[in-house]
Structures are given as structure tokens and as C-alpha cells.
């Protein structure tokens, strides 16, 4: 019988200090997330310096907690997987340096993981991945379509040229005087309104899988501004519904097109915005008509940042022989395709 592979994952790229232990890349032994969101709410967004300070306060607590919950010691761990990037550099540095200290203290292999690879592999914790697959990654920092012809191989076929979808949500929420983070508020509001306001869809050039949300964001701001000048009132519910409709339509249409062109077996959704009900239901409707493609949307707890996803991706990269030595640095602009070699 083959011995189980046990990976300790560490993730600190933004405002969650997280550690997890994953067995054989698909089974969560323990998954601990210390969220800082309450601390950042008062600033209307994540403040990098404050995020870094919180990570230092939390890191060993989270590590201890995860080993306790899994009822393991460092001796049980085969490798340490850590988010190398992308993300906030000061925040990433805490996870990277904690991981290096652990790897040194216990002479364990160190596996660098791309944050988005983590989001994609979060899905392996709920279902078996079937290749080739297409991943739609949508979060506060990312909007991309990633094509994977096989395990551990990533090709970015489309990405945002300006704002990430989640970022656009946060900005529109601010226009509507809703608290940070705005996504869930807009999503809720959208379900109470109708998409009666005409807002643009950025399709870009024919055949492009790239995205752009800054024009949409500006259109929302202009709509509110013009209405104010004319003394008219806009129903926030309708504005939210119209905005969400525009975002979702572009995301879904491009995802469907790419899935067909690349003849994938599976489409997986990853990242915080995957929690959005409007997006989920639109994708479900679209893919219910395409029999040969499986649509996978992970549970909420695995959509937002966590370390189980880093350990899951780390498991595959570890098998592939990906390693870092203890000079590993945080890389805020890390490219996912460097893992393909």
C-alpha cells in the first residue's frame, strides 16, 4: 500500500492568515483561516501594512491550530506548500518566511504555489478534476480564464485588462454607499431589482477572452451622477441588477465560448466571486445545455482564500517535482505559467 502524501499549506497573500493540511491532494485533514476582514472594514478595503501586521500576530497560532486539529506533528508532514504570489508583497512575506523556517527546522521540502493555481485546485477537494479543463477565476484581485490540458499545467487564455470583477463590485458598492466588501451586498440587492438600466458590455476584439470592467464601472458612476444632476432617483436595486447583469453576461458568454473552442471536459469556477449567486445560476443555466461539459462550483468556504487550496495545488506540484530552496522570496507579480516546465 502506498503511503499517504501529507501536505501542509500556508497562505497569507491578502487578508486571511491560513494554514491547512491536505492528504493525497484531495482530503482535508484540517483547514484553519484567521480572517482580518473586521479590521479592514473601517478603511473600506484591505490596507497592506495593517494586513502584514495581522499576519505576524496570527501566523504561529494558525500553524499550531492546524496541527492540533489534524492531530499531527511536523514529523507527519511530507512537504510544505506556500503561496509565493501573486498578492500583497508584505503579506506574502509572512507566509513565505514562516514556511522557510519550518522547512529548515524540520528538513522538509518546500513547494512554491501560485495563488490562482490554489483557487483552481480548491475544486479537487470536492471533486475529481477531468482534463482538459477550463477554469474561470474571479475574485477581488483576479478575473481570468485558465486552460489546463493536464494536471499542473496552466495556460492563461484570457485576463482582465484593467479592474478585476471583484474590484468593480467593491467600487460600485461604494457608489451605492454600501460597506466593504461590496460583492455580497450588490448580489443581494440585484435579486431585489430589475436590470432596466442600459449599461455597456465590454466584449473587446473578436475572439478575445480578455475582460475589461473599468468602462462598466465608469458607466455606473456616470449614471448615478447624471441622475443626481437631473434630480432623479435611481433605485439602487435596479442599478445593482443592471451592473450584475453586465458582469455576469460577459463572464458567462466568454466562458462558454472558450469551453467550446478548447473542447474541455470540465469548467470549474474559482475565487471569491464564485460565491456570487447571480453568476452561479447563470453558469448553471448556460452549461445545463452543454452536455459534454461538467460545471463545478466549489462550496463557499473553498471559494474565498484558504490554505487547503494551496496544499491541494502543492500536492500536484510536489509530485511534479516543483521545489524551492530557502532563498524563496515573495513574488507579488508571479506568473502562473512558470509552473509548466
Amino acid at each position, binding site marked *: 500500500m502506498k503511503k499517504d502524501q501529507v501536505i501542509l499549506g500556508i497562505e497569507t497573500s491578502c487578508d486571511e492568515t491560513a494554514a491547512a493540511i491536505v492528504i493525497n491532494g484531495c482530503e482535508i485533514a484540517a483547514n484553519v483561516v484567521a480572517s482580518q476582514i473586521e479590521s479592514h472594514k473601517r*478603511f473600506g478595503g484591505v490596507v497592506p501594512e495593517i494586513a502584514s501586521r495581522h499576519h505576524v500576530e496570527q501566523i504561529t497560532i494558525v500553524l499550531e491550530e492546524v496541527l492540533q486539529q489534524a492531530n499531527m506533528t511536523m514529523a507527519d508532514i511530507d512537504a510544505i506548500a506556500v503561496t509565493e504570489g501573486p498578492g500583497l508583497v508584505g503579506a506574502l512575506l*509572512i507566509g513565505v518566511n514562516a514556511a522557510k523556517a519550518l522547512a529548515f527546522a524540520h528538513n522538509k521540502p518546500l513547494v512554491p504555489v501560485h495563488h490562482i493555481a490554489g483557487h483552481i485546485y480548491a475544486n479537487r477537494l470536492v471533486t475529481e478534476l477531468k482534463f482538459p479543463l477550463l477554469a474561470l477565476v474571479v475574485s477581488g484581485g483576479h478575473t481570468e480564464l485558465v486552460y489546463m490540458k493536464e494536471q499542473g499545467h496552466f495556460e492563461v487564455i484570457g485576463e482582465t485588462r484593467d479592474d478585476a470583477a471583484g474590484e468593480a463590485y467593491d467600487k460600485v458598492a461604494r457608489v451605492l454607499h454600501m460597506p466593504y466588501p461590496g460583492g455580497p451586498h450588490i448580489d443581494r440587492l440585484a435579486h431585489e431589482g430589475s436590470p432596466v438600466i442600459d449599461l455597456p458590455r465590454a466584449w473587446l476584439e473578436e475572439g478575445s477572452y480578455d475582460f475589461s470592467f473599468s468602462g462598466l464601472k465608469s458607466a455606473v458612476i456616470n449614471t448615478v451622477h447624471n441622475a443626481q444632476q437631473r434630480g432623479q432617483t435611481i433605485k439602487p436595486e435596479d442599478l445593482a441588477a443592471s451592473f450584475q447583469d453586465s458582469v455576469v453576461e460577459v463572464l458567462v458568454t466568454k466562458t462558454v465560448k472558450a469551453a467550446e473552442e478548447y473542447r474541455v471536459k470540465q469548467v470549474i469556477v474559482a475565487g471569491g466571486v464564485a460565491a456570487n449567486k447571480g453568476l452561479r445560476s447563470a453558469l448553471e443555466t448556460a452549461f445545463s445545455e452543454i452536455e459534454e461539459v461538467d460545471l463545478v462550483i466549489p462550496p463557499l468556504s473553498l471559494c474565498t482564500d484558504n490554505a487547503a487550496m494551496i496544499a491541494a495545488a502543492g500536492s500536484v506540484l510536489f509530485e511534479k517535482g516543483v521545489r524551492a530552496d530557502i532563498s524563496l522570496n515573495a513574488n507579488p507579480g508571479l506568473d502562473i505559467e512558470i509552473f509548466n516546465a
Partner: protein
Amino acid sequence: MTILAIDTSNHPLGVALLENDQVIGEYITNLKKNHSIRIMPAIQALMQDCERVPADLTKIVVAKGPGSYTGVRIGVTIAKTLAWTLNIPLVGVSSLEILAAGAGRYFEGYISPLFDARRGQIYTGLYQYVHGKLETTKRDQVAMAVDWAEQLTEMDKPILFVGNDLSIHRDVIGERLGSRAIFAGVTEQNPRPSELAMLGKDKQGEDVHTFVPNYIRLAEAEAKWLEKQAKNFQ
């Protein structure tokens, strides 16, 4: 007893191993180069050269600031993680105290270690050796160099200034304090990690989980937020 000392709080990067009152190894550079890339390999190389393994360590001593926010966090994160996972005590020492300890040991007067804190400001404090023991006269703080020098005109003994950033503030200090200001020499300007190890040797271990750097200053966003709260309250 084998103590590992780590300092990444400012440009100097330092690692030392202290064993039974002997400095068995010490590594130090004073370069504007990435601490995150270099500190773990430096620790590894020094321990290998000294033929020690992580399990031999009995205590971690770390420079806890003030200094570069990012720099001090790198050292503190590594120190916390090592102390926690090896289950050994962790001690934090002021980054300024390390400078004072080294340069001022045989100086009859006060010692003012300093790091530049930009826009005319310095991180500093006032220390003094009393019967061979380093004591704090004025706590670590951030101040305008000119105000700090002015404050020190009241002191009854000469003051030794030390630190790599002296050249930036030397004129301002000299103007206020004249011959009562003494400036340390080139070879004394780097905080020595072996001094750090000695300073932490007899100190009691702190709670590893709650251990944080001494930033001196609040994060800018935090300070502004508090200011706004205070205004709203009035």
C-alpha cells in the same frame, strides 16, 4: 545552551550563534539587499559551518525593531516560527539597544543609537552602562533629530551617537550639542548580532504567539483613522 540571534530590522543583516558564553559564529552584512532572500540561507550557512543543527538550538533572540517595517517582520516571523516549532524560548531585543550595547560598552556617558526615520526624523533612545550593565535612560522613540538633540542639551554627561545613518543627522546634532556629542567610528556602526545574542541570553522567554515587532509607529492608515475618530468625537 545554543542561542541563535537574528537581526533583519534595518539594512544590516545579522546572524550569530552564542554557545556557553562564547560567540561561535557571526555573520553580518550592511547592504541594501533583500533580507527575505538572504536571511534563511545565512542562518543555514552559519549553522552548517558551526556544525550545529536546528534541534541543537535552545533559544532564539530577535531584533524586534524599530526599523524597516518589512525588514523587522521578516526576522520576527522566522524567529517566532523557529521558536514555536522547536519549542524553545523566544526573546525580543530592541534594535537600538544592540547598537548601544556594542559601541558604548566602555563609554562613560550616555549612548544614543539611531536609525534614520525619514523627513528629518530618527528612531532613537538613550542608554547608559551602569556597573557593566546596559540600562535605558530614555525609551525608544521616533523624534525629529533636531528636537532630540535639543532635549539632550540638558544631560549631564557626554553622549555617544552610533548608527549607519549618522552621516544624515550628524550636522544637526553637532550644531546643538557641540563637543558633548561624540560620534562612533566606522567599525562600530553596524548592530552586532552577537551583542543581540548576549542581550537576550538571560532574558526570560516571551509568549511566542502574541510576540510582535516594536514598530514604534502606528500604521499610517490606522493613525489617520484614529485622528478622524477623535475629531468625530469632539
